[in-house]
């Protein structure tokens, strides 16, 4: 493996976004392809981050710094990858459902998804089913992630899925759900495609659903 890739993955691991961006530029100058930089540099770093986090050796703020470093590189690479016809891992759209203002969990999932290479669109909190539908039409995500903190607002997840079905969009996206009162049984009941019990589980699930796991 090229030395530059190792340095990129180290920059990601250390959460150094400036270093990561400048190394990506340097790699491109050296003639490395965007796809190689992504796969052998950035993603290698992030997968080590994932391993360390799960082992309890890295902490949330550090993971988020790494995700930032990854994104700093991705911002440079994304246009090149698109131009080169390389298929990106995918797009995740996230929102907290109608009636619910709690969005720290959703924010975390977003950052974790960015960390594994997704493009993330966050449509905020207190999002009505109709707004979800409109946003899916606009952004055409691969994954729709919904979050709810209350049992009373949980049901809005069901309503949103129903709205997607009625708009004929349900087949075009995978729907994942999460939040304190949610569990796998509920996800199944409202016919979501998956449930994540915490933020890393959410991003793992997203990867799995786009076939990148």
């Amino acid at each position, binding site marked *: 493996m090229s030395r530059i890739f190792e340095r990129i993955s180290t920059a990601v691991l250390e959460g150094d976004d400036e270093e990561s961006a400048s190394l990506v530029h340097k790699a491109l100058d050296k003639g490395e392809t965007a796809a190689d930089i992504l796969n052998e540099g950035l993603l290698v770093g992030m997968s080590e981050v994932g391993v360390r*986090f799960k082992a309890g050796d890295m902490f*949330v703020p550090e993971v988020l710094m790494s995700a930032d470093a990854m994104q700093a590189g991705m911002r440079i690479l994304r246009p090149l990858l698109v131009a080169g016809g390389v298929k990106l891992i995918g797009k995740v759209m996230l929102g907290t459902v109608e009636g619910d203002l709690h969005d720290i969990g959703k924010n975390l999932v977003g950052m974790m998804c960015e960390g594994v290479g997704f493009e993330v669109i966050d449509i905020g909190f207190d999002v009505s089913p109709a707004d979800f539908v409109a946003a899916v039409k606009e952004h055409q995500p691969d994954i729709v992630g919904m979050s709810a903190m209350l*049992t*009373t607002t949980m*049901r809005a997840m*069901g309503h949103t899925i*129903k709205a997607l079905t009625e708009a004929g969009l349900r087949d075009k996206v995978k729907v994942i759900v999460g939040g304190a*009162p949610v569990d796998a049984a509920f996800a199944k*009941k409202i016919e979501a495609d998956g449930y994540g019990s915490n933020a890393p589980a959410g991003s793992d699930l997203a990867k799995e659903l786009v076939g990148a796991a």
Partner: protein
Amino acid sequence: MQVRKTNYLVNATPTLQVLTEDEIEAIYFSALRVLSETGVRVYEPEGVELAYSHGAIVENADEKSSLVKIPSWMVDRARATLPHRVTVVGPPDRNGKRNYVMDLFKNQIYYGTGSDTPFTLDPYTGERRRATYKDVKNFAKLAQALPNIDFFMSLGITQDTAVGTYDRWQYLAMLEGTNKPINITAVDIEGLKDQLEMAYIRLGGKTEWKKGPAFSLYIEPVSPLSHSEEVVQKLLFCCDNDIPFVYTPCPLAGATAPCTLAGTAVQALTESLFGIVLSQLRKPGAQVIIGGLMSNMDMKTSVYCYGSPEMALLSAAYTDITKWLGVPEYETAGCSDTKLFDEQALMEATFNITTAGLIGGNMIHDVGYIEQGLTSCPEMLVASNEIIDRVKRILRGIPVTDDTVALDVMDEVGPGGHYLAHDHTYNRFKTEIWRPTLTDRRDYNDWTKAGSKTYQERVHERMIELLEADVEPLMDEAMFKELHRICELADERHKDEELDVQMFV
């Protein structure tokens, strides 16, 4: 002659202080800065208008919300009418007596349960599952039987009743099990109205409510600095209807609040102060209790810690602040991050129950919580009752008098003697020595002979015993039917909502 002591200060109990008055002031004035310079976001036009018309600055309005900045003088004015004491009185027993009074003011402690966990551990199988009406009733029955549980909150969301109306059913389940003061939750204003009507019926009229409200309402603004439509509506309704309410944000240090504990306290206070200002504008003298649930995000697992030392410490610090402010405090204790009733549950509960008792937090809730507040555990409630009892022994302190210093007794017994048969011992052993109920102090032989039961096993047995005990119904059939009718009518109104009924079972 025996002269009585004069000019002599006594620590009547052990004392604990997290923050000095100077530190409290530093936090308070910081909160005033945040409230006036950063402001809070309010999602209820009536609340925005109320604040605006009394001097608040309103900016950055969008279709849903406005940024409201409160000048410090408005806080000073609100504090002038803010009650220092709030009282909640449980419903009457069969003889018409309202025995359980929660009198909340500086340094008074009352322990109670937490509310609305989606899950519960089944009392018989220990399996984690969605909570039901029966569970809430069971928990209320346990709380009723446990002498150190002073108020009740629904240890479980009733999820075998309709989602849109669960709060009425939950209140009914609670009323079936206990006549201790209750801290309710409400789905929305309609749910709150229904529950208030139920309370009037249970008490025998609105006048009884005025003599002493039978419940308080739990209201939770969202951190950071956000006050939703429903939250503000509930607050205004409570002011209008003499309902005491708990205005308690749940900031999470490092995630929805600053990583520093002092910063988290500043933000929480800002959020609570907004509730205080709004309530006193709506109705001077409106009864507010502020909290409360402040903790840190565990940066390894990203969970909201309910058992961390930071939670206990922040709660205690906030109690110092509320004492200075002169407003009753909604403390937190008796809870853990464990997933089952194990050693961890009891270690964490011991620390937070002790801290809350020492600091003198008023309405100490969440007894019975495990798993970051997502699951209720009946054994945890029963065990905490005994831990609270232990702490109360310590809180009685060490009186220093001629009688307790006992120089004469020591002289009488002398070197090498003993005190077992002395009157000084005989007359005091029942009050001086705490007597356990679940704790085992037998020697190894006797303990082995009795089956080598662990603490958890003994607690489980005791819990089942309490659960299966025959008790008189707390209200007569007619009243129960009347209350039941309100719940049914609510269901009737919501019957067309999708995914509402039988959502989980």
